[in-house]
């Protein structure tokens, strides 16, 4: 499965959802996707383009552009191409469709992105904190405007 063929088939079937699809190298491709269509694109990738291995789902906070991005890295067990899908979300109420129905192992990734960034994943099986305690849910630590906990670590002599 050659990178260019993948990009053409992708932009062909979702002309308005996929924008700025670019091939970085022989085995890497990048594309922006509309946030409503993210789940259909993943479903299409999995069914027809053999992208059956979800590497990771992560959030990025672009505070200067006042928007957030959810980045999906989708790879495959058969061919070495890794596709990076990026969905842009407004920073005030970031919400996106959860893709647990397509990729089962996205469950924990989405829970972790939720507790670190505050991105709500609609109809996710059990969207609650995975790694942080419950009472830290309002603070979204990985956002750029996070002031941080009071520094209670050991006193630094220096």
């Amino acid at each position, binding site marked *: 499965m050659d990178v260019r063929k993948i990009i053409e088939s992708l932009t062909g079937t979702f002309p308005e959802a996929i924008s700025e699809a670019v091939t970085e190298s022989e085995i890497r491709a990048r594309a922006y996707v509309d946030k409503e269509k993210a789940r259909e694109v993943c479903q299409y990738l999995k069914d027809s383009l053999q992208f059956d291995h979800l590497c990771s789902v992560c959030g990025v906070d672009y505070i200067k552009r006042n928007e957030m991005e959810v980045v999906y890295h989708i790879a495959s067990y058969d061919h070495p191409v890794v596709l990076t899908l990026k969905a842009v979300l407004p920073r005030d109420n970031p919400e996106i469709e959860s893709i647990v129905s397509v990729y089962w192992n996205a469950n924990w990734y989405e829970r972790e992105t939720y507790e670190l960034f505050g991105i709500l994943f609609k109809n996710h099986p059990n969207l609650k904190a995975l790694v942080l305690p419950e009472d830290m849910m309002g603070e979204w630590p990985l956002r750029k405007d996070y002031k941080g906990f009071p520094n209670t670590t*050991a006193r*630094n*002599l*220096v």
Partner: protein
Amino acid sequence: MVLKNIKYALKKIPQPPVTRMYPEVATELSDRFRGLQILDKSKCIGCGICANTCPNNTIRIIKAPITPGSDKKRWFPEIDIGHCLFCGLCIDQCPKGALSSGKEYTTGVIKWKHKDLLMNPDKLAREVDLEEGDEK
């Protein structure tokens, strides 16, 4: 059924033990072992590159006498080994190569009180005994 395990275990009984009595028999360290840093006061120019490259910012530049007892003072690094990772970044980044890694990792380094973990330049240059001034 389980004969191979028993035969392997019986074969192991006469062999000498691999472990050793720790405090009596010291560990043999590899020559690149990164213990407590050694400061060479003649090479150090007090530039502070080691201070801002340290991941846990445990190094501070203070004024210290050049040779023990002399009143002429210059800027030297002082390392708080309570937070030091012994990662060796300060040793690599030093432009003059004033810092090098020593071999002390238990004798002079383990202290009773938190404040004694602050290794001043004299101790780093090994002009003064590492235990000096410690509270037991």
